[in-house]
């Protein structure tokens, strides 16, 4: 399934400043996995060291948070939209992965 993924401005420069990017998958988890295959640096921001979605990041499918659906295993349809939204508190620099390595769960300032 081809899904449109919305990238908020704190993550956007990791997608070449694209607001929406395409990703494929049958479930939200597969879509996110495909997303970070295309944009590996995003992986450190939308997954924790155990490759789970951290508690300060919410994933929405068609504007519904996935835990109110079937979680990461929620099926997606062609044309659906996934949005990955972090908690923000002001005073936060654009998060950047410390390395391109898998699982490094630290953002650094510029």
């Amino acid at each position: 399934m081809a899904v449109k993924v919305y990238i908020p401005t704190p993550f956007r420069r990791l997608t070449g400043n694209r607001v929406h990017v395409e990703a494929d998958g049958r479930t939200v988890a597969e879509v996110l996995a495909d997303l970070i295959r295309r944009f590996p640096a995003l992986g450190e921001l939308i997954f924790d060291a155990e490759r789970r979605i951290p508690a300060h990041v919410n994933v929405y499918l068609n504007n519904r948070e996935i835990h109110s659906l079937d979680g990461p295993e929620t099926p997606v349809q062609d044309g659906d939209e996934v949005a990955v939204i972090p908690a923000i508190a002001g005073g936060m620099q654009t998060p950047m992965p410390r390395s391109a390595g898998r699982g490094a769960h630290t953002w650094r300032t510029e």
Partner: protein
Amino acid sequence: MNDGQTTQSGAPRVLTPQQVMRYSRHIIMPQVGPVGQRKLMAAKVLIIGAGGLGSPIAVYLALAGVGTIGIVDFDVVDLSNLQRQILHQTDDVGRPKVQSAKETLLAYNPEVTVITHETPLTSDNAFAIIDQYDIVVNGADNFATRYLVNDACYLRGKPLVDGSILLFDGQATTYLPGKGCYRCLFPEPPPPGLVPSCAEAGVLGALCGTIGSIQATEVLKLILGVGEPLVGRLLLYDALSMEVRIVKTRRDPRCPLCGDHPTIHDLIDYDAFCGGPPLTTTGARAGH
């Protein structure tokens, strides 16, 4: 105390001709009217932070005649604040923000009462401050204060109008006790090290006006009892793509604060929870 000019709730019994004129563009709307205006004049609203969000929130509430406006902030005005914090002007650099804020608001509308709390908001003083108000508006610039305000408002049964900004993104929502809270939305803050200091931040100044104005609108709606507040909904504003989306939020039955089996019954150590420096230095500072 009742001076005969006000009702027991503190609302004025009769608007003066000057008040009718000043608030005429509100009063003429049936959703407000003279009754609504008196509600606004009797309302007590606390604003956390006199910074980027707190500025437009405070200005619009004062202009609307919200009778009592409290402001918590312990910072002083910095030159770098003036790109977005419209409560403060160039001559205010170096002055306590709450002083500058009070002067600005009273210049806009001398009829309102501005109460300044020149202190960091902490677990020790949060209840005592929040208890003085009907509604709390959040313009804090750090996660520790956000969780503190959330918990304090829930535990004291106060509506919380929340807003946050970063770069070109803004978020706004309203929490009514029992209908979900910040912990339901974001159970944990980002790990330590994720959030640099405010001085390193970037945020579009005009974004503060957008989100702060939405927060002020929410407060006015709550006071007036009109419209549909952003309860159970999170507004996401993207200034770069100029997209606004509203996602659904919900009370999480597993929430440690407002869930079915809560484990948080009092304020906690929010510095430890957020893994940051002591709240005495990161408390309700500046607010964005």
